[in-house]
């Protein structure tokens, strides 16, 4: 994998301390989501997101496709750590869920970082169209595609 530009330490890849993950919960759909916990120290995922607990666009779907723009490619060397890793990773379009999985990031953190990069113009995004689940044309194409699997 072309991830040699990956940031130094490996330990940030470990799942975050359980008690420290609440800031990334998206309250929008949550049931009984407790208020964010902010007091803890050493919260790396929290630091990664510059202290923000939700992406600029909290509704960004986990399957949304992101791809590095020419601006992203040319400025990659100037980006820091995870931002740079993402820009390098997304030369080919992939989903936010894949960004998280391939970089060992918590899903909520990946979403925040990807949002940053979209806002900065370094990533282009393609989101599922509104009304997609009711779009007969799309569903028929998916059926045809699946039928081709042997």
């Amino acid at each position: 994998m072309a991830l040699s530009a990956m940031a130094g330490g490996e330990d940030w890849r470990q799942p975050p301390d359980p008690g420290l993950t609440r800031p990334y919960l998206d309250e929008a759909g949550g049931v009984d989501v407790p208020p964010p916990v902010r007091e803890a120290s050493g919260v790396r995922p929290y630091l990664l997101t510059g202290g923000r607990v939700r992406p600029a666009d909290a509704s960004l779907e986990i399957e949304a496709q992101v791809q590095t723009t020419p601006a992203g490619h040319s400025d990659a060397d100037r980006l820091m750590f995870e931002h740079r890793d993402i820009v390098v990773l997304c030369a080919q379009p992939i989903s936010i869920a894949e960004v998280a999985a391939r970089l060992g990031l918590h899903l909520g953190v990946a979403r925040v970082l990807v949002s940053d990069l979209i806002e900065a113009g370094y990533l282009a995004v393609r989101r599922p169209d509104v009304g997609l689940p009711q779009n007969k044309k799309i569903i028929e194409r998916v059926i045809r595609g699946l039928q081709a699997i042997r």
Partner: protein
Amino acid sequence: MDSKPSDEAGELAGKPPLPVKIVVAGGFGVGKTTTVSVISEIPLLTTEAAMTEVAAEIDRTGHVPQKTTTTVALDFGCITIDEEIKLYLFGTPGQDRFGFMWQDLTQGALGALVIVDTRRLEDCYAAVDYFEHHDIPFVVAANRFHGKLEHHLEDVRWALAVSEETPLISFDARQRRSVRDALLSVLHMSLARAEYPR
């Protein structure tokens, strides 16, 4: 390849694909991971996502007593449908409740495949409830462990109390074609309520 500029990013070569998804739900150990990995064209990927503590408390698997973690692993794979569409399959974690995960996973989903182990039917109640309540098209699929079912499908339907309109099928999570057919039944449910875009 067509190098028509995309709306969002000017000089990108072609647009990123259009993502669509189907949710693969069910209780712990019913075969969700097998189902996704047998048909995915990429090796199964896993990411950590948040889970509420409520869910952690009701996790009653003997292997992880009193699990206190608030993250949960989300497995997924994908299938290239055609030159434009990419289908994602998200396997929901085994726990009964996991707060925002459901919302996040099901938002915009074409439908859901609820996998059941006929020996532990109650494990899928939460998923069935959720999809019924949110009016998401779904199919209940009994995984034939070791090639057989422990109960007749009619008995399973009775026990689950799902409506007659909800397809109840049996499949083998280890067989790609069987998984494909199970996903196709989900899509036919989705199709039944879809319309051609105006």
